[in-house]
């Protein structure tokens, strides 16, 4: 049982936010159906809470990664990008 939980936790860590959210929503629906044995319900609840924490953590990860593709001689490169206010002045609409 403990190993199962560990495996589930490891699996959850590898999940995308969307997968985690979907799993979490499935768990909530299942729990709300009231159609699960108490033991399963407790396990589902624990899994759901850890998924929720995981999703919360993912939300907190502030990467600020904004890149712009640059076409160079060696193909496509990237460089960090930050929109500038000055350039917009007088450059109508673009």
């Amino acid at each position, binding site marked *: 049982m403990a190993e199962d939980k560990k495996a589930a936790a490891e699996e959850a860590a590898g999940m995308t936010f969307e997968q985690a959210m979907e799993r979490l929503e499935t768990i909530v629906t299942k*729990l709300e159906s009231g159609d699960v044995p108490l033991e399963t319900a407790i396990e589902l609840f624990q899994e759901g809470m850890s998924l929720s924490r995981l999703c*919360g953590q993912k939300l907190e990860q502030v990467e600020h*990664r904004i890149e*712009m593709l640059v076409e160079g001689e060696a193909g496509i490169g990237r460089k960090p990008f930050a929109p500038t206010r000055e350039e917009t002045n007088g450059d109508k*609409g673009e």
Partner: protein
Amino acid sequence: MDQQKVMSIRDLNRYIKVRLEGDPGLQDIWLRGEISNFTHHSSGHMYFTLKDESGRLKCIMFASYNQRLPFAPKDGMKVLARGGVSVYERDGAYQFYATAMQPDGIGSLYLAFEQLKKKLEAEGLFAPHVKRPIPRFPRAIGVITSPTGAAVRDIIITLQRRHPSVPILLHPVSVQGTAAAPSIVKAIETMNRLAEVDVLIVGRGGGSLEELWAFNEEAVARAIRASLIPVISAVGHETDFTIADFVADLRAATPTAAAELAVPHAAELRQHLSHLEQRMGKSLRLLAGKSRERWQHAARSPYFTDPRRMLLAQAERLDRLRDRLTFRAQSQLGRAAERAARLNGRLAASSPTEQAAFARKRMTGAARALELAMSGTLRSSRNAYVSLVRHLDALSPLKVMGRGYSLVYDEKEKNLIRTIGEVQPGDLVRVRLADGRLDCQVWGIQGEEISNG
């Protein structure tokens, strides 16, 4: 006249044709005019007249050229036509051979827009079922727009504000002018090739119809539809509609709106998460409550609370059953005994011993009766005999003879002689007396009258 050479009409027409076609001032020129007498022949060639205020010119556009026209020419339409002048030899008529044509002026831009829209709609490019769903939680966002300007700033600021953890990949393009459409097409293709982002925002800020025109180009529309990554269009202001908006998987009224549609708000997500947690907790509490209720219900069962009572009930049942058993057994026994007695009686009634006793009794009775009857008969017979003997004795002739009477028989003493008629004189007769016989012979016979009294 004779010296002068006579040309055939055919030769002359050909000569003129060669001269016209050889004149660079008549080839690859642009004409502006209004279409009239337009005919789209079944062969695919288009025949029409171009006219302006001062003149008119017969035109032809061959099928090979008109196939790629971005619009459908019509009478009254103002166009710019490119081509050269040549001669139709049979009729001796010169005409304009158009190789390209486009609607003239802003009015015709609207026209081209409407026509492309109609065409792509007919092809099913706007159909709801071909639209790809926008992912709920994109891992990365691709932005295709000009790197300078309000649009890119609005998009990035909004994305950052809503969901700062989602990476943004910007593909800079030119969004205006003749290079715009090809560069947008290329950017969409590049993003698809890189396959890093889950959703694309393609757009630019507001502008005039001409400025937005790249987003009305067929090539851009087809690139958007061909993209494997879902596309959110974000062109101009809310009132601006472009072909790109129709063909995109989702249309945003403004670049800011596109960013809002592309990512969920992190704060809203956090709220959603806590809401989900609450729902889980509530469900679990409910389930636990229900389980507790079930347990309590089970624990309250009389089997647990008062096991004795349950036993008593069973004992009572046992007693009742035992009573019934006894009652049934007894009644059955009674019936059986009754029947046995009945049968015994019948059996006794038909017993041979009884019969024998009875017979013996009957026999004894009969014997006694017989004896009785026998002795009675004997007695009465003896009495009768005695009286008869007395009687007989009284009647005995011997007694009579004792008093002096005798009996006369024939000689052999066989027949008693009662009358005189039975004897003849001389017959021998025997006379019996009380003490012996006398043998006598009849001497005489005298009859006598017998008186009666």
